[in-house]
């Protein structure tokens, strides 16, 4: 890597540099997962790591969870506004200052170049199992204000120029239900930031500030070129779509979403005018979650090998009304926005692309099917896969997570060993995918018999409005929630006695093309 420091990045060097920075982000991810205590980070990998240059530009991200895609630059922006000194380490979760929902604790290290100058930022976001608030897990059913959902952290310094601020840590741990687990997960995040900082510093020592700035520009420009090359092929496309969430968690009234999509001048314009204002329940989401969903949809249109950096997001232009559930502002609650509203935005955007004649899959299950059981001294949380939409290329995959989630299931045998629950049935929900030239993917059936008194909380969607088919394909079957065979609402909380059976039947994906006669 010999060229002059200011010279723009040579096309010969792009893939080598792309590997070099991705490797650092991957390494951060490995250190995080290895060190984390909670199964949610360690096993389900609900976490992301990223590396930013000194100007706050994201050069690489190792993402396990699409919902973190492209949401991290907002965190760095918030930290830069707080006036970071080299060696400062920040923690934040406030959706109004760079966060998403409160359980996602984001750590940002302002990297010291070794000579007391700011060199860049290492960022680790991880979903913590509890951050306080009105109910265990900090994803409360029926919350109407952010303060009910947990401890709110604007960007605060955990370390000042490398010196730990123990009082702040004590304050945070005093406000959560499982302080020891949180301490361990935070330590893992800290170790991951440190690995990122070390890797970035090594590049800096070898190549210098100017060269690294040129590299960052080159990598972002390159990803942008790959994205605009795809958009150029869609120039002139215009599509509109509508969709809705089935209630906000407080009321069953639909929350309507609307978008007008257009591709012009190499940019993807998304105008959400006509979308519902902020709602009372917690399905609102801040702009960065909306942007993450938009980025995911664009990413799904690109070849798999495009590197994940901020350049992909450059051609996206988002417009929302002033008061909009997709650009939430203080003091509304947002916990479910991240898990369910983000899915609905994805569905909405794919539908708009389809309306514009773009080759995209029919709608998938469009929900994460969040299930929480809680009894004396135990809590069990999981999410369930369902049907993916079919596409021009073939049938939709069965029984997978779609859209913004991709976490793994809990083995029946492990679950039954750890909790007073027996899985009566775990099966593919045959025939639930929509008919079509290509069939939609089938959903999942999972029936839990509880052996001890407990509470079940369901946060699900697509129980009334089916995932839609495309190009003449039939809709998938909507999901169903049952208690001893009797239907339950999409979002609810119930007290259970031993012997009760909770059964979820997750939605099938939409079919593609007219069904064979």
């Amino acid at each position, binding site marked *: 890597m010999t060229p002059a420091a200011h010279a723009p990045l040579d096309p010969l060097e792009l893939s080598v540099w792309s590997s070099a920075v991705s490797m650092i982000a991957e390494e951060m991810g490995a250190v995080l997962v290895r060190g984390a205590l909670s199964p949610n980070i360690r096993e389900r990998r609900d976490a992301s790591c990223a590396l930013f240059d000194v100007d706050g530009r994201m050069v690489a991200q190792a993402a396990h969870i699409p919902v973190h895609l492209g949401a991290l630059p907002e965190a760095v922006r918030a930290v830069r506004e707080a006036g970071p000194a080299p060696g400062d380490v920040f923690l934040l979760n406030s959706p109004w200052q760079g966060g998403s929902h409160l359980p996602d604790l984001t750590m940002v290290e302002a990297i010291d170049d070794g000579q007391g100058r700011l060199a860049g930022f290492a960022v680790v976001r991880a979903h913590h199992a509890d951050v306080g608030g009105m109910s265990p897990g900090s994803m409360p059913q029926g919350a109407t204000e952010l303060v009910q959902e947990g401890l709110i952290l604007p960007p605060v310094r955990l370390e000042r120029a490398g010196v730990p601020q123990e009082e702040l840590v004590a304050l945070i741990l005093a406000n959560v239900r499982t302080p020891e687990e949180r301490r361990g997960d935070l330590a893992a995040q800290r170790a991951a930031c440190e690995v990122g900082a070390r890797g970035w510093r090594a590049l800096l020592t070898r190549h210098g500030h100017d060269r690294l700035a040129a590299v960052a520009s080159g990598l972002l420009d390159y990803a942008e070129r790959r994205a605009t090359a795809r958009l150029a092929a869609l120039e002139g496309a215009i599509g509109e779509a509508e969709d809705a969430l089935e209630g906000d968690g407080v009321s069953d009234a639909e929350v309507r979403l609307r978008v007008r999509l257009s591709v012009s001048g190499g940019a993807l314009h998304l105008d959400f005018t006509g979308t519902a204002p902020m709602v009372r329940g917690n399905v609102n989401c801040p702009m960065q979650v909306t942007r993450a969903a938009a980025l995911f949809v664009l990413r799904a249109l690109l070849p798999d090998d495009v590197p994940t950096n901020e350049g992909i997001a450059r051609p996206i232009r988002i417009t929302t009304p002033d008061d909009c559930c997709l650009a939430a502002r203080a003091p509304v609650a947002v916990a479910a926005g991240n898990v369910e509203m983000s899915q609905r935005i994805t569905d909405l955007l794919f539908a708009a692309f389809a309306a514009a004649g773009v080759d995209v899959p029919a709608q998938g299950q469009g929900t994460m099917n969040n299930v929480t059981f809680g009894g004396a001294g135990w809590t069990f949380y999981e999410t369930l896969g369902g049907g993916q939409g079919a596409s021009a290329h073939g049938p939709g995959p069965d029984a997978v997570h779609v859209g913004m989630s991709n976490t*793994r299931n809990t083995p029946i045998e492990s679950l039954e060993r750890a909790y007073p629950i027996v899985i009566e049935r775990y099966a593919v929900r045959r025939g639930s995918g929509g008919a079509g030239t290509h069939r939609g993917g089938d959903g999942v059936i999972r029936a839990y018999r509880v052996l001890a008194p407990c509470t079940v909380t369901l946060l699900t969607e697509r129980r009334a409005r089916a995932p839609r088919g495309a190009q003449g394909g039939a809709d998938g079957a909507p999901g169903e929630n049952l208690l001893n065979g009797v239907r339950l609402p999409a979002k609810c909380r119930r007290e259970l006695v031993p012997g009760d059976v909770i059964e979820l039947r997750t939605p099938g994906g939409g079919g593609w093309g007219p069904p064979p006669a």
Partner: protein
Amino acid sequence: MGAGTSPRAVTGDLAAGVDVGGTFTDCAAVAPDGTVRATKVLTTPEDQGLGVVAALEALGAPAGAVTRLVHGTTVVTNLLLERTGARVVLCATAGATDLLDLRRQERAALYDLARHHPAPLVPGDRIIAVDERRTVTGIARQLDAEGCARVVRDALALAPDVVVIALLHAYDAPSHETMLAEAFREAAPGLAVVTAAAVLPEIREYERTATAVAEGYARPGVQRYLERLGDRLRTARFPAPAVMTSGGGMRPAGDAAQHAASLALSGPAGGIVGAAAVLRDAGIADALTIDIGGTSADAGLILEGEPLVEPGGAVAGVPIALPRVLVETVSAGGGSIAWVDDGGALRVGPRSAGARPGPVAFGRGGSEPTVTDAQVVLGRIGSGGWSGGVALDAAAAAAAIGRLAARLGADALRTADAVVRAADAEMARALRRVSVDRGVDPRRCALVAFGGGGPLHACALADALAMQTVLVPPFAGVLSAVGLALAPERREVAASLLAPADALTAAAFSEACEALASRVAGRDRAWLVRVRYAGQGHELEVKAAPGDDGRAIAARFTAAHRAQYGFALSRPVECVALRHVASEPGAGATFRRDAQARPVDAAGGVDHGGPAEGVILVGPRAVTLPDATLWIAGGWRATALPIGGWRLDRETA
């Protein structure tokens, strides 16, 4: 034909290894004096065994000289890739018959929403529900004779080659699985029946079921292959073969045929076992390994002289949760094609020119520039420096790289250099992943570089990972075959051992150890316990021995956890499973250079495998090895080793 063949006569008591690859079948024979003789023939895909015998015959050894033969085979991998295995009927607990379709519910690709996982080995219409259910506390639904009879009748109606029985919680108490298996044996005495708890007695129903199905699917094909191979070898007066397992040990053919799933990564394991043998002779304990072939590179890890063995991994999309030597494969090799993407960037791979048509320089019809062509343009591979006696067409390679350079607006030499560096970057990432993911700092490891392309990329990879030492083993191009020749004979058995560490007495643990030990013979014995914090899904394996109690095991687990993850918890510890390895020492040869081969030509840069007293070369320069080319980069100093091969050290400024 072939590399490393020396003119002198071959004496008796040869330990031979034969490794079947995609293009070549390699054979190495190690003599008691530590000299190695190698041959290479074309692989015979229609029946690998023909190539195996041909490679052995190419040794030219007198009848009876080969006394030990270990085989690395891709027969299981091919059965899984080509989906040409047996017709399996699966019997599963009612209510949980869709496990193979449900997998772990994650999608096949994060952003490619149309992509599917490979289809399961057993379609839904060949899965039979068994009316039974065991829970953690006992039997919730008893399997009765009538239930067994119904399952047997329905299964036989589907005309299976093999029946696989996989029931919930059977890892702990397999009585329902054995009862049903017995019913099949009575009704259809000749039929092959596989029970999941016997293949993998461990918790986690999906992985256990999938592994058992893979066993049933591959077993008849493996059996047929090994029987035919045994016949051929007998006719040619070679000994009966043993087969390398994914875990880096070997099983006699008859035993291997009953453990088909344990052979899925037979090939790559051989290379790492070979690297471990070379490290032992060179006195190095910890190393990363890189095996670079035509289409891919395999990264591995050796700690304290032992290849790292972990459970898990998938072959051709089929999860096989048995112990295997850790190998991480990336699509970067000598045949990887260089191209320009729609963002204007130079890219290398994942598409490969493979063996046919191969790199442009091979003159077999390849037209797209590859990593090997770039090496030729950079002058790192001389004419005739390629295995198999291929004459290199340097002009054609230069023309192909020139066309690529023109598209990029760069000159040919810089383009060639960039192609090699892009491939290096991919491989460096794989090496980092295998080490960092396990808490190992690559800087404290040596790098062992082998395979046809390993010695060419070694210095650059060591530079990328800040490693200080590189070892290029003797017979770098056929090290897998050498590893097979030297492999220890190992047998493994395992059992579920679900118990809180506090409650596990020394007597109970000893009993469990001895129960396993009684099932296998071997001189050296080791016991390994999989342990975790109660309620967590993440396990570590620690060594143990009869006489240990749960507390001792827990203390070892805590220390291991702290070493790997940097912390320990005050949470209770529980045991999950017990594994026992019984082994006989491998062929205990010490490598040495062949006194009768031509000495190293230091001036000309050619290593014929012969004496090399005090030869030290300084980079940048190339050295032609018997079966590969070594590139000594600037800043590196290479010392010819008495054991054969080279050690490279960074020059101190």
